């Protein structure tokens, strides 16, 4: 099963993940002003939330990795060298 984690301090409370998620995995806690993972089991691993999240606070594990044909290969080779 796909596991999602939110870096709580990094969440800026923009609700963009809740708005974009096609399967309504997230809810929004109005008192904390943070996103909450309510239905993790519904996640289809499209990563829309992860791409839209302004702070990069969302991390998925155990999802099916689709090889993106339009990745910049030249840069990808450098990516793992970033400190």
């Amino acid at each position, binding site marked *: 099963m796909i596991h999602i984690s939110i*870096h709580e301090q990094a969440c*800026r409370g*923009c609700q963009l993940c809740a708005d974009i998620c096609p399967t309504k995995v997230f809810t929004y806690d109005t008192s904390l002003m943070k996103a909450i993972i309510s239905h993790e089991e519904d996640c289809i691993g499209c990563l829309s939330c992860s791409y839209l999240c302004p702070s990069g606070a969302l991390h998925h594990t155990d999802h099916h990795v689709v090889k993106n044909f339009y990745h910049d290969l030249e840069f990808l080779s450098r990516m793992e060298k970033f400190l």
Partner: protein
Amino acid sequence: MSQTTSTKKAPVTINTEWLSDCSGCHVAIVDMHEKLLNVLEAIEILHCPVLTDIKDYPKANIGLVSGAIRTEHDRHAAEEMRKSCDVIIAWGSCAVYGGIAGAGIVHSKEEIFDAVYGNNKTTISHNSPTTGISPFEKLVTPIDEVINVDLYLPGCPPHPAFIFDALLSLLEGRAPKATKESVCSRCNRTMVHTDVDKIKKNFEGVAEKENCFLSQGYICLGSVTLDRCMSPCPTNGMMCTGCAGATMQVLTEPNRDIRTEIADRMSKITKISRDDIISEIEYSAKSHYSYTMASKMIGKKPTFLIKKWIANTEAEYE
């Protein structure tokens, strides 16, 4: 325990070199404050333009190179560093992306010399110097265009905590703790949804302290910028200018760009249209791409047309 064993080892030797940059990266080493003492126990600094009087390049384990390649001297120094060091770290945004020095790509050498020496209102001499300075290269480039780079540490300058961790991880032979999160991750503002329908310039009004700049109509680059700084600017009331370079998703995917990513997020939390945000960023492209424009990682994107945007903006002034 581990500390006692590490002090017995031969110290790791380090060369640093300073190409076209402002010296901020070297100053950031001093900003490690007392943590520097921990590092100094395990390293020996050989070539360092601000510390040691060594002009040649002795053999060293680690080479820290800051600054972009702007002059022929920069190219020579970078090549010598590569020859003398086992591991080369591109250190700071100038070395990784070209940085502020890289903004020189939007003007020709003649235009730059004319602006600095020829028709500068604040200098008396109207002649460009011909001796005593190293000749300019045709273009400004990040160092990995000239030499093979093993590791990249962006930031302007990288926060001392990241330099400390990078050096320590190399000494201890472990992976560094560097994260892929953006500047927003350490900002203390909340991204609220608002009815703002107009983009504001940085100098217009005073931004509220609690809410995100994007929510208030100010263009802040925090969400597209790698966190190598601990977010001091947005936390203290200034919009992020993107000095540590773009996040991984912008760098790796040709269809994602600084302006489109900001426009996607900002248009969803305000009433400003996506196209308006994109054209505003293109209009002030020199500011918003000032740190990364010389890098092929940004410059090669099919939709990146900075010279055209700048020409459009300048035409409007005239």
